[in-house]
C-alpha cells in the first residue's frame, strides 16, 4: 500500500467522536446503542462502499437509493406473490440490482453520458419501476403481510458474542448483527481487490487518468461498467438487509440514501476527482455519521441541528482533503505547462 499523509485523521476523528459521546451523551456507552448503531448503519456502509467505486472513477451513482428499493420490491413480489423459495428470491433480487447497476455503466460508456445525468435519469426510472412492479399496489391485501421466509428472516439475525464467549454475566457486549458481518466481508473483499489485484489497480488507474490508463493498455470502458455494476450489487445487498430488518418493502425504501452514501464516501476520503480512496474510509464515514446522529439524539439535540452538523462534517472532510492536496511536497501539484 501507498503511504499517504493525513490517512490517520479519519480513524482518529472517529475514535474521538465515539469517546466524546461515551463521556457526555447519556446512555451512549451501552451495548444497546452500539447494537442499534451496527444494525442501523451497516446497510449505509455497504451502499457507501458501492458508491465509492463510481466516485473513484470520477463519476457518481445517484441511483443507489432507487436500486435499494428495486431489490427490496423484487424480493417482496417474488416471495409473497410468486412464492419462490427464499434462496431464489435473494439471488433474483441481487441479479435485478446488479443489472440495474450494469445498465448505469452501459449508459455512461455507450452513450457517453455524464455519470451525474445518466444516474439521475435512472434514479427516476428505477423508482418508477419499483412503483410499477409494487406488490403493494397490485395486491393491497399483501401490504400488511410480513416477509416470513426463513432465508429472508435469517438476514436479520444477530450474534450474541457475549453469550458465546461466556462473558454475558461479567459485561454486556453488543450483539453483532449479520448485516455488520456482511459489511466486514464486503469490505475485506473489495479492499483486497482494490489493493492487491490487477482489476483494482486498473480501477485506480482509470479513475486517476483515463487517458494514461488507455495508453497503458487498460480497457477503460470495461472498468467503468464494472464499477457501476458493483455499486448496483452493493445497493442490492443493502436493500435485502433492510427489507429483512423491516420485514417488508415499500416504494420509498432508500429514499435519499444516495446522498448519505455519497457523504459517507467523501468523508471516508474518496476523492471526487477520482483515483484516490479506499473502502474502509466510506465504512468509517457511514458509521461516523451514525455515531454523530445517535449521539446527538441521546444528547437531546434537535433533528435540524443534527442535519447542520452532518453538513459541517462533510465540509470539514472535504476541506481537510483539499488542504493535504495543496500542501503536498514538491511542485507536482502544479499543472505542467
Amino acid at each position, binding site marked *: 500500500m501507498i503511504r499517504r499523509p493525513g490517512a490517520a485523521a479519519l480513524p482518529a476523528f472517529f475514535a474521538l467522536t465515539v469517546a466524546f459521546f461515551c463521556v457526555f451523551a447519556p446512555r451512549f456507552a451501552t451495548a444497546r446503542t452500539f447494537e442499534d448503531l451496527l444494525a442501523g448503519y451497516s446497510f449505509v456502509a455497504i451502499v457507501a462502499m458501492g458508491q465509492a467505486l463510481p466516485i473513484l472513477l470520477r463519476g457518481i451513482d445517484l441511483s443507489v437509493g432507487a436500486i435499494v428499493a428495486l431489490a427490496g420490491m423484487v424480493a417482496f413480489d417474488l416471495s409473497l406473490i410468486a412464492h419462490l423459495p427464499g434462496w431464489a428470491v435473494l439471488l433474483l433480487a441481487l441479479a435485478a440490482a446488479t443489472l440495474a447497476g450494469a445498465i448505469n455503466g452501459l449508459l455512461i460508456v455507450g452513450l457517453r453520458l455524464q455519470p451525474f445525468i445518466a444516474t439521475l435519469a435512472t434514479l427516476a426510472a428505477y423508482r418508477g419501476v419499483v412503483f410499477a412492479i409494487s406488490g403493494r399496489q397490485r395486491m393491497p391485501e399483501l401490504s400488511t403481510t410480513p416477509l416470513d421466509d426463513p432465508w429472508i428472516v435469517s438476514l436479520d439475525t444477530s450474534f450474541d458474542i457475549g453469550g458465546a464467549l461466556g462473558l454475558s454475566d461479567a459485561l454486556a457486549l453488543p450483539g453483532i448483527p449479520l448485516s455488520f458481518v456482511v459489511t466486514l466481508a464486503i469490505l475485506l473483499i473489495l479492499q483486497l481487490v482494490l489493493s492487491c489485484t490487477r*482489476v483494482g489497480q486498473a480501477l485506480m488507474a482509470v479513475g486517476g487518468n483515463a487517458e494514461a490508463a488507455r495508453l497503458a493498455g487498460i480497457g477503460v470502458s470495461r472498468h467503468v461498467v464494472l464499477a457501476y455494476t458493483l455499486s448496483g450489487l452493493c445497493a442490492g445487498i443493502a436493500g435485502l438487509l433492510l427489507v429483512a430488518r423491516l420485514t417488508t418493502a415499500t416504494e420509498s425504501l432508500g429514499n435519499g440514501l444516495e446522498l448519505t452514501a455519497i457523504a459517507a464516501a467523501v468523508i471516508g476520503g474518496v476523492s471526487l476527482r477520482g483515483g484516490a480512496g479506499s473502502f474502509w474510509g466510506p465504512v468509517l464515514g457511514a458509521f461516523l455519521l451514525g455515531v454523530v446522529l445517535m449521539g446527538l439524539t441521546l444528547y437531546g439535540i434537535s433533528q435540524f441541528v443534527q442535519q447542520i452538523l452532518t453538513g459541517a462534517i462533510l465540509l470539514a472532510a472535504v476541506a481537510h482533503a483539499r488542504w493535504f492536496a495543496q500542501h503536498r511536497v514538491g511542485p507536482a501539484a502544479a499543472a505542467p505547462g
Partner: protein
Amino acid sequence: MDDALPIRARAVTKTYGTQTVLQPTDFGVAAGEVRALVGSNGAGKSTLMKILAGAIVPDAGEVRVGGASAPLGKPIEMLRRGVACIYQHSNLLPEMSVLDNLYLGHFAARRFGWLDRRRQREQAQALLARHRVELDLDGPVGNLPTVKQKQIEILKALALDARVLLMDEPTGWLSVADVARLHETIRGLRASGVAIVYTSHILDDVFAVCDTVTVMRDGQVVADAPISALTRERLIELMVGDTIARQVEAVAQRPAPAAPQDAPRLRVTGLCRQGVFRHVGFDLHAGEILCITGLVGAKRTEVLQAIFGCDRFDAGAVELDGRRVAFKSPREAIAHGVGLVTEDRHREGLLLNLPVAENLILATLRRYCRGPLLQGARVREAALRWIAALNLRPPEPAMLVQALSGGNQQKVLLGKWLDLRPRVLMLDEPTVGVDVGAKAEIYAALRAERSRGMAILVVSSDLEEVMAIADRIVVMAEGRVVRTCAAHDTSIPQLVRDFGAVVPA
C-alpha cells in the same frame, strides 16, 4: 522501404475538422537504428508518433509491426507487439506509487489477477540498478519533482523490453547529466537491436545520438537522410522551409524602429515563481509589440498569468508606468488597464452560445448601460464598429459565436479586449488553429493598435508569427529568459537554436 522493418507506417493520414495535420506519410525504422524525427511546432511529428503507438486512429493508411499489419488505434495491441512510447505529456498517475506506475497495465500477477508485488519489486529494483536511477518505489508519484517523473516515464517504457521505442521530446525536463545518461541508455538499446524514434527540438541531442533523420514540415515528410549527410544549418533550413526564409528576409528589410526613448510602460524584473520560472525580466514600451517565444513548457503562459494576477509570483517586481503593481486578481489588472487574451478561447474566453455583439461588449458592459439597463442600440453600434475593424465574417452582430469559424471566434475575443482600450494587452498564442487569412487580419489589428500607442505582449510558439509581428523578441527556455533582442537582429534559425539553449543552473 522494407516491409519487415520492426515498425513501418504506410500512407497514414490524419485530419482534425478541416485541418489536415498529417498528409499521407510513409515512415519506418530499422532494428538497431536511432531515427530522429524533427520539425517545427505543428509539423505533424506528435501525430505520427501517436499513430505508431496506437494512441490515435489514422484516417487512412496502415501500420506494420515486424512485417505484419497491426490494428490501428489500440495502445494495448501495440504494447503487446513490443512498441512502447514515451509521450510528451505526462501519463503518470499521481496518486499511485512509483512501482504501480512503472508496470501499469502489465503488472506481474499470479492467478486471478492477484498482484505479485514482491516479484515486481525485485524486477523494478533490477531495472533501477541497471539504469542507475534512485527512486523510492513506494512513494506516490505526485510528490516527486518533475524531473523524477520524467525519469519514471522513461523507465516505464524501458521496463517493457520493447523492440520499438518511440520517444516524444524525452529530454524536455532533464538536466545535462541526465540527458547524457539517457543517451547512454539509448546507445545500449540500439546495440541490443531496438528500433528507436527520437523526437526533439534540441538539435544537439539529435546530432549526438541519432543515426538517421526524418524531417517533417506542414504534415509531410520533406527529407529523410543519414544524420552524417546533413549540417546543422541545412537541417534547420529543411525544418523551417523556404516560405519562412522569405518572410524572414522581408522582416529583415523592414526599417528598424527607432529605439524607444521613453520609460517602459510595463517593466518586469526578476520575476520568480518557485519551481516554475526564475528571474524573468523584460521591458515593454508603448507602441511596441514584444513577443515571448520558446518551446511548449518554457513557462511563458505562467509568466503572463502571474503578471495578470490569476496566478502568484514569489519574488520580483512588475511596474506599470513606473508604479509598482502586484495584481491580486484579473479584475484588478483590468482596472489598471491590463488585458490578457487567453490561449484557450473556448474554455476561458468566449460565451459560445451568445451572439457576437454580447461577446464583444462583455468586458465593458457598464459602458453600454444607462442605469441598470443595457442600451441595445449602442451595443449594436459598437459591435458593428468592431465587426468592420476586424473584418468579421459574416458581419452579423446577432450571430451566435459558436457558429463562427475558429479565426472569426478569435477575432471576437480580440475585439472584446480591444473594446476595453487597455494600455497593456497580453495575448497568449493568439492565432492557434486560425487560418492564414484571419491570421493576417489579426496581425493587422494588432499593428493598428500598436501605432495608436498600445503596449502589446504576445506569447507565441509560431516563429513565423513572431517574425511577422514582433518589434522585439524574448526567448524563454525552461522558465528563464535566454535571450532578448530586436526582431531585425535575429532569424528563425537563430531562434530555433535559442530554444534548445542549455540554461546554466
